[in-house]
C-alpha cells in the first residue's frame, strides 16, 4: 500500500512530475550521448594505436624507445619466441622492423615510415587485405611493397609501378632498393596513409642490412585487463637487455589526452547532474511541504513516521527511476544506430581529430557500465534530494501541521 500510495502521489501534480522527469530524461540523454561518443572516440584511438603500432605490450631493445634508430635493434631469438608463445594471455605477437626512408618516383620524393612485418600475422591483426583499395596483399616471400593511398597519390604511382627506397641501414650501411608496388592501402589513420610503406619482414631486414634483427615485438592480449600481470611476467622472463613497455607507457600523449578529456567530460556531467539534483530536490520539497497536514493526519491515525519516510523515499526513487528508464529507452536506440553508423566528420573538426591520430569519425559505443553508472548517479541524486524531506518528517510537529 505504501508503494502504491507513493506511485499515485507523484502523479498528483502531473505537470510538475512530468517536468522533473523530463529534466532527468534530458540529462540521461546528454550524458549517455557524450559518454558513448567519448568512449567510442577514445576506444578507436587506443585500438588504432595498439593495433597499428605499439600492441598492448611491446618488447624492444633497452634504449630503443629513447633513440629510435636502426642501430638499436635486437636479434630475434628462440628464447624470446618461447617466452612470448608460452604465455597464455598472449594472442598474437608481431615481430616488426621499423625505420624511415626516402621514397622516390621520378622527380618526386617523400619521407616514409617503412614497416617490415610478417604479412599473415599483420593481416590477422589489422585486416590489411581488406584495406587494399587497388592491387593485392603481400606474401611473405614477395619482393614488393604496399603503399598508403595518399603517399601513392603524392608520388603519382599506382599498382605495378616501382618506388626507390633510400635510407640508413644497420651500422651506417646505405639502405637502398627498388620495389614494385603490389597494392595501395587505405587505413583509418590519415597520417599513415601519407607515410606508410609496408613490406615483408625478410625483405625489410635485407634492405636495412639487419638480418634477423627486429626493432620490436608487438604483443596482442587475449584479455587486455590482465595487461599489468602479463607485462610483469614477460619482464621477469627477459634479461635487462630488453625493455618491456605497455601501450600506456608507449602512448603517453594519447593517455594524457584521453584522461584530460575524460576529466573535462566528468566535470560537465557533474554540473548537469547538480542542476538536475536541484530540480528533483525542489519537486520533492514542494511535494513534502504541501502535504504537511496530510502527513499530520496520517501520523495521528497511527502511521509511524518511518512509514511516512518510506512513502516519501519511494516517491523520490520513482521520479528518479522513471526518468532514468524513459531516458534509457529513448537513448538506447539512438546510440545503437550511431554505434553501427558512426558520424563522418569533415572540415576543421576532422582535421583536429586527425592531428591527434584519430580517424575523422565519431564512433559510438554501448556498454552496460555506462547505463548502470547513469542509473546509479540519478538514484544517488534522489537519495540526496530526499534528505531534507526526511529531516522534515522526523522533526515535524503533528498539531502545528494540522493547524496549517
Amino acid at each position, binding site marked *: 500500500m505504501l508503494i*502504491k500510495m507513493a506511485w499515485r502521489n507523484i502523479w*498528483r501534480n502531473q505537470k510538475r512530475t512530468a517536468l522533473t522527469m523530463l529534466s532527468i530524461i534530458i540529462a540521461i540523454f546528454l550524458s549517455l550521448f557524450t559518454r558513448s561518443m567519448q568512449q567510442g572516440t577514445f576506444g578507436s584511438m587506443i585500438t588504432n594505436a595498439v593495433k597499428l603500432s605499439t600492441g598492448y605490450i611491446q618488447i624492444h631493445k633497452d634504449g630503443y624507445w629513447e633513440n629510435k634508430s636502426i642501430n638499436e635493434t635486437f636479434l630475434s631469438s628462440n628464447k624470446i619466441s618461447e617466452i612470448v608463445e608460452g604465455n597464455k594471455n598472449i594472442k598474437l605477437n608481431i615481430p616488426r622492423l621499423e625505420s624511415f626512408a626516402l621514397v622516390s618516383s621520378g622527380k618526386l620524393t617523400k619521407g616514409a615510415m617503412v614497416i617490415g612485418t610478417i604479412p599473415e600475422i599483420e593481416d590477422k591483426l589489422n585486416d590489411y587485405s581488406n584495406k587494399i583499395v587497388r592491387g593485392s596483399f603481400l606474401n611473405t616471400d614477395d619482393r614488393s611493397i604496399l603503399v598508403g593511398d595518399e603517399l601513392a597519390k603524392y608520388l603519382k604511382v599506382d599498382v605495378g609501378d616501382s618506388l626507390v627506397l633510400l635510407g640508413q641501414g644497420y651500422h651506417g650501411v646505405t639502405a637502398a632498393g627498388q620495389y614494385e608496388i603490389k597494392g595501395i592501402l587505405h587505413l583509418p589513420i590519415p597520417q599513415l596513409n601519407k607515410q606508410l610503406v609496408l613490406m615483408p619482414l625478410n625483405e625489410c631486414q635485407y634492405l636495412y642490412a639487419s638480418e634477423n634483427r627486429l626493432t620490436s615485438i608487438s604483443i596482442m592480449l587475449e584479455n587486455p585487463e590482465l595487461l599489468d600481470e602479463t607485462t610483469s611476467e614477460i619482464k621477469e622472463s627477459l634479461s635487462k637487455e630488453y625493455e618491456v613497455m605497455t601501450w600506456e607507457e608507449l602512448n603517453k600523449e594519447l593517455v594524457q589526452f584521453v584522461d584530460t578529456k575524460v576529466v573535462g567530460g566528468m566535470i560537465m556531467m557533474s554540473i548537469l547532474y547538480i542542476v538536475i539534483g536541484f530540480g528533483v530536490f525542489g519537486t520533492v520539497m514542494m511535494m513534502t511541504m504541501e502535504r504537511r497536514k*496530510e502527513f499530520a*493526519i496520517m501520523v*495521528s*491515525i*497511527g*502511521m*509511524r513516521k518511518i512509514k511516512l519516510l518510506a512513502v516519501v523515499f519511494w516517491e523520490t526513487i520513482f521520479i528518479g527511476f522513471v526518468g532514468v528508464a524513459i531516458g534509457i529507452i529513448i537513448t538506447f536506440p539512438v546510440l545503437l544506430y550511431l554505434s553501427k553508423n558512426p558520424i563522418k566528420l569533415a572540415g576543421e573538426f576532422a582535421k583536429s581529430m586527425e592531428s591527434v591520430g584519430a580517424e575523422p569519425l565519431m564512433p559510438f559505443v554501448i556498454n552496460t557500465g555506462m547505463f548502470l553508472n547513469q542509473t546509479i548517479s540519478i538514484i544517488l541524486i534522489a537519495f540526496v534530494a530526499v534528505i531534507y524531506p526526511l529531516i522534515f518528517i522526523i522533526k515535524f510537529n503533528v498539531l502545528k501541521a494540522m493547524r496549517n
Partner: protein
Amino acid sequence: MSIITTKDLNKIYDEETIPVHAVNNVSLEFKEGEFTAIIGPSGCGKTTLLNLLGGLDAPTSGEVIINGTNITNLNSKEIIDFRLRNIGFVFQAYNLVPVLTAKENVEFIMQLQGTPKVEREERVLQLFEQIGLKDRMNNRPGKLSGGQQQRVAVARALASKPKFILADEPTANLDSKSTNNLLDIMEKLNKVENTTFIFSTHDSRVIQRARRLITLEDGEVQEDERIK
C-alpha cells in the same frame, strides 16, 4: 466501566510569556458506550481537550489514563502505536488520503495494524454496508460528496476497532441532510456495537442527540450533564 480518565488535566500555552489556560484542571471519566458531546463557545478548549484525550498533544500537567495506560508517559513512537490500536479519529475536514480510494482509506489503517488481507476485506465490506456506501467504495475522495467523505472517515476510524472515537466538529462542513445521515450512522454504531463516541461540537443537531453533555468555558468544565 471507565475507559478514559483524566486527572487534573492542564494545558497552558505560552507558559513563559502570556500564559493561556486552554484546559484548566479537567478531571473526567468516560465510560464504554458513551455518546458524549463536549460543547462550549469558540476558544473554550474543546479541541485542545480532544487532542489531549487522543494523545496528539501533551498536557502541561495532569494525566490521561486510557484503559489503565497513562498515555502521558508514552514516548512518541509508543503513542502513535497506542493511537493506532485504541483511538479512532474523525476530523472536521474529513482528511481522507486523496490518492487512495474510499475502500483503501479504510483498509489502510488495518494494514498499519497488520491485519490479514481476508480479515481486512470482510471488515471493509461490513463497514461500507453500515455507512451505506458499498456502491461508492472504489471512488477516490474527490469523487465523493462532503457527507459521503465524512461517512468514510467514520468507517476509517472504526476500522481499527478502537476503544473510542474522537470526533472534532464532524458535522461543521456538512448540510443538514448529510449531518442527520452521519449522526444516524454514529448513533446506530453506538447502540448496536456499543462504540464510544466523544464529540467536540457546537452543532445543535449533535447536541440534541448526545446522551452526555460536557460544557467547557475558559478551559474549565462548567457542566457535566447526563441525559436519559
